[in-house]
């Protein structure tokens, strides 16, 4: 008999790198940043096209010190929060209405699906005519974007609850409201969290649209004014702030998901 070649099965822990995961994740962006700085320093990237990371950092610290950036951020974040709350309430309420009852579905769903096909950015002129150029049209725009994402995902979440669990709830003697509270809503939570993520992304997008078209305050206003003076560094600072705020929002949702969905027996990656 010929000898069989044996090979060891390497335990997973032995293969695991000692570098922590968060550090590994930061190397990609860090590399891009260094590349950008090098391109700027060697003149490959002229400063009137895009300022260097160093210049941008200087501008940013100046804007923070004179208070323009914190103030603008506060105004913008407030708009997003207002829009999110209003759109969230409307979206979730409509989703509950059409998700929980067939009557609600017949009355609500068709209308929502119809309005959903309208690109919400196209509503801006109408909102300006209706509400002027103050805070109202910006918040309305954000609320509109948020409403549809939450509606669709919460509705899908409710309708995706396992019928076997509903039946188990029935066999345990749960009434209609107890069933909604203990079975349907927790079951719809994963969908709702997905909806929250999408709607946050949409909220920032709506904010940018709303603020760049007409604003005398907020990050979008800074962005527009910088355009008139060809200040690419200020423009990039504003974009970074938008991105950072979006990242922060995503972090908050991820934390929420970790806390609220820890029961989920799903694949978490190797």
């Amino acid at each position: 008999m010929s000898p069989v070649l044996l090979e060891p099965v390497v335990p997973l822990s032995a293969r695991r790198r000692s570098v922590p995961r968060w550090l590994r994740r930061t190397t990609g962006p860090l590399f891009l940043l260094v590349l950008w700085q090098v391109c700027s320093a060697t003149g490959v990237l002229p400063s009137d096209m895009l300022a260097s990371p160093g210049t941008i950092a200087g501008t940013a610290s100046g804007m923070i010190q004179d208070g323009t950036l914190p103030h603008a951020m506060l105004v913008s974040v407030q708009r997003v929060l207002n829009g999110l709350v209003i759109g969230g309430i409307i979206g979730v309420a409509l989703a509950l209405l059409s998700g929980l009852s067939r009557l609600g579905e017949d009355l609500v769903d068709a209308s929502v699906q119809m309005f959903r096909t309208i690109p919400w950015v196209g509503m801006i002129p109408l909102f300006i005519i209706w509400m002027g150029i103050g805070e109202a049209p910006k918040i309305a725009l954000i609320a509109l974007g948020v409403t549809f994402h939450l509606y669709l995902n919460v509705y899908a979440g409710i309708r995706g609850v396992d019928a076997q669990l509903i039946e188990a709830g029935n066999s345990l003697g749960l009434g209609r409201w107890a069933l909604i509270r203990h079975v349907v809503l927790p079951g719809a939570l994963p969908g709702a969290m997905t909806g929250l993520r999408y709607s946050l992304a949409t909220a920032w997008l709506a904010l940018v649209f709303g603020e760049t078209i007409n604003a005398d305050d907020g990050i979008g206003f800074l962005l527009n004014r910088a355009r008139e003076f060809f200040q690419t560094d200020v423009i990039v600072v504003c974009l970074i702030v938008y991105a950072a705020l979006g990242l922060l929002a995503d972090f908050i949702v991820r934390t929420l998901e970790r806390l609220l969905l820890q029961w989920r027996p799903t694949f978490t990656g190797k």
Partner: protein
Amino acid sequence: MATDLHRQVNPLTKETTDDTAVRVDSLTRSFDGRAVIDNLELTIPQGEFVALLGRSGCGKSTLLRVLAGLDREISGEVLVPQRKAVAFQAPRLMPWKKVWRNVLLGLPGRPGREVAEKALEEVGLGHRTDAWPKTLSGGEAQRASLARALVREPDLLLLDEPFGALDALTRITAQRLVSDLWQSRGCAVLLVTHDVEEALLLADRVLVMDGGVIAHEIRVDRDRPRDIADPYIADLRTQLLDRLGVEAPEAAEVEKVA
């Protein structure tokens, strides 16, 4: 012990009897015009352990769902206890509730955690009260599901192939557990199964469902715990397999191998 029976067809009429846990009279349930249960009669006395056998698709699970009140598109008269509980083939625990909250789900009033702990202790799961369902093994989840049924102190316990998804060893332990719990509780049990040996080891009476009715029934007059090698049990087994349309000796071999 008087069981409070209530008529599902008309929930307003209630009836109190001294010795009956289930009474079914000319029950019919059709799917698209095809009668799966066809004019079925069934009586289960209080405290009796009944096993219901039948070929796949014979309507035994449908009958259980009717008794559980989950299927009401029926005609005929069905009387079942108000306090009844179901354990399904899949444990059907709410994944978003810890085990002890699953056990208490749907109980009237605001029962404390100790009620759940006691029930879980009874099924040997006292150490997993605080676990998420996803961390339970198949046998543990099934026992949690059993605790959830028993904590309701049912007069009728409906078991829908509760051991079907368990491995052979876990199944034996779970069968003993159900037998012990039944003996200490004294509730009527209807066990739907396709396992002839399981039926003979556990039940007072074994029913065979065929053609939408109870086509055959045998009584098992043997003390517990029973032995499958007992000639009396083996003889009943042959009879039942015959009734189920399986050639007995060959089938016995096949079942042992499987």
